[in-house]
């Protein structure tokens, strides 16, 4: 656990802070119906959403996550861009954001699910997943991450 981040977060009484989520697309695809819908459901559920257009560079996503104190990153992929997600997770870890959950939504072929889960993707949503199901899933992941960050460690 990165103690600097832990301290920074602890000053903000997180329980009262609405969850803050980054919804973005990396790679080459531009289809944004899914990402816009998810962003609107999250906002309606009271979360703070940072939304970007498509084609974001991985470095830019990491920088945004740092600047904006993002608690969860939602990536929409309709056309193979999910294959870049392991690179993103590595870059997040290198920036000290290894504890930020990454969720992928869109078209992920069966054979790629294992690859993403092994890389550390927290959850994959497929076509047919409902907006409310996604909202509750994301809320749960953020609460779990907050709990983990504030759990008293045995060393201290």
């Amino acid at each position: 656990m990165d103690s600097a981040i832990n301290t920074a977060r602890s000053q903000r009484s997180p329980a009262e802070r609405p969850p803050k989520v980054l919804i973005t697309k990396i790679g080459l695809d531009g289809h944004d119906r899914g990402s816009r819908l998810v962003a609107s459901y999250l906002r309606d559920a009271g979360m703070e959403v940072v939304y970007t257009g498509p084609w974001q560079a991985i470095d830019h996503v990491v920088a945004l996550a740092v600047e904006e104190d993002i608690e969860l990153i939602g990536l929409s992929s309709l056309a193979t861009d999910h294959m870049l997600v392991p690179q993103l997770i590595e870059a997040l870890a290198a920036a000290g954001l290894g504890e930020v959950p990454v969720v992928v939504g869109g078209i992920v072929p069966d054979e790629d699910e294992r690859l993403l889960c092994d890389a550390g993707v927290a959850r994959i949503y497929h076509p047919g997943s409902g907006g409310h199901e996604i909202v509750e899933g994301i809320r749960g992941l953020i609460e779990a991450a907050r709990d983990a960050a504030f759990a008293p460690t045995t060393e201290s």
Partner: protein
Amino acid sequence: MADASNPTPPVQLALPGFEEAGARWRSDYDAQVGPDNDVHNRSGIAVEPLYTETQWSGERYMDDLGFPGQAPWTRGIYASMHRGRAWARRQLVGMRLPNDYRARLKALLDSGLTAVSIAPCNSFMRGFDADEVDPVLLGTCGVVINTLDDMRTCLDDVDLAKMSVNLGDNAPFTLTAMLLALAEERSVPWTLVSGTSNQSDYLSHYVANHMFLRLSLAGARRMTTDFIDYTTRQVPRWNPLSVVGQHMQQAGATPAEAMAFTLCSAIQYAEDCRAAGLELEEVLPRFSFFFDVSISFFEEIAKLRAGRRIWGRIVRDRFGIDDPRCLRFRFHAQTSGVDLTRQQPLNNIARVAVQAMAGIFGGLQSLHTDSYDEALSSPTEKAARVAVATQAILCEEAGLTDVIDPLGGSYYVETLTNEMEAEIERVMALVAAAGGMYAAVDAGLVQRMIGESARRFQDEMESGARTMVGVNAYVAEEDPADRPPPLRRLSRGETDDFLARLDAYKKRRDGGAVTAALDAIARAAADPSANLFEQVVAAVRAGATHGEICTRAREVLGAGDPRVAA
């Protein structure tokens, strides 16, 4: 134009017993269903339980229908329609590298494909060569084409003088330039080359899927007008402009909105051509359209019939043209991927057949049927073959082509066609009030409307108001045997080999000629009297790659940036 709430005034009926029998039906119906279900189609139009002479009458036949190949065009754009000549079975094909594309195309031509299409890789759509992107993304959603060499391989088995070729191409239209250069090489006169640049509608990419977004809105506008000008003069059988409603409906627009926005875009393109000094009588015959066909069967049929009618009026009344070649609303249709499910994927074969039938009864000229595995991955070969076979079954087994506009005269279909027409015109008026399609897109109005409709549709799914078999109803254990086999992705060796060939291509061409050709593109961009596309063709001939041409065009015309809003 009929009124939306009461499209046709009730006629004085001379049908003995009509009133009495109708009243009896109503009371029986009410007794059986209780409070009536409130049924609306996707465009928000209320759907009654029964349509009779009350809503539509044969007395309106000449006003609403007429004959095929004549105004008001409701029954189709040609006198003979599908009975005379069946639609073209045109599947989007594009995977991996040019050699793989060639092999897949050959297999589909053997399965009954009657027209060629090329779906390029996402790297191509975004304006890059293979060596400019992460190799893991190459060839997964389309074929990687960077050079004239690649085009040569893709179309090795295709006779360019005979087969119509559909290219996923947008400004600066490098694919079309490659095709024209290839025709020259094979001594096929450009006057025989036929096909469509089926992604040339830059407005649709700005508002909907954001693919092919390489140049600024203004830059794409300039390049597209020059392209229409050039091909109309030099490649008379080419359709430089396919105005696309498909992207917008896939992004969430209702069927009526998608048709309205498409017609507004077509008006915008025609106005732009006229402003550039082009003769509309020469340009409009080369306009074609491209629509999504959802599973909302009757609504889609009505949408297509109404669109045909409105286009005929626009050309006649707004542009003052009576030439039937300009009035004909020629369109390609694709079955909607939004209706397909990841769950129980074989069910999608049934959905696609129903969607395709709606398009056929709507009077399409060519058709792409989706593969059943498209909610899971890019189409696998087996699924792609089923999709083509579905078209062959509908065309050659089911008798759908025996009668022209077989649903014409149906009380429901005629009433709905009138109502959809009114709804489409209502949306068109909103765009007109915003200053036309270009201004409405630049201001983000169209994007906002599409986003709101997408949300409404999703809310109906969430609430269960809309049934999706396998998703919110009839959920069943998945049979692993129904899952498609894993896609054959490019190996590192295959990617390296392609990149090595690209590198060799760049080394063996005349570097000075390429630089000069790219400079000529920049000069033409700065000179409004020059034709930009002419310079793109020259650059392809000189050996410039797709990425180089896009980069240079982007430097002078500005980069594309969707007006992003969630």
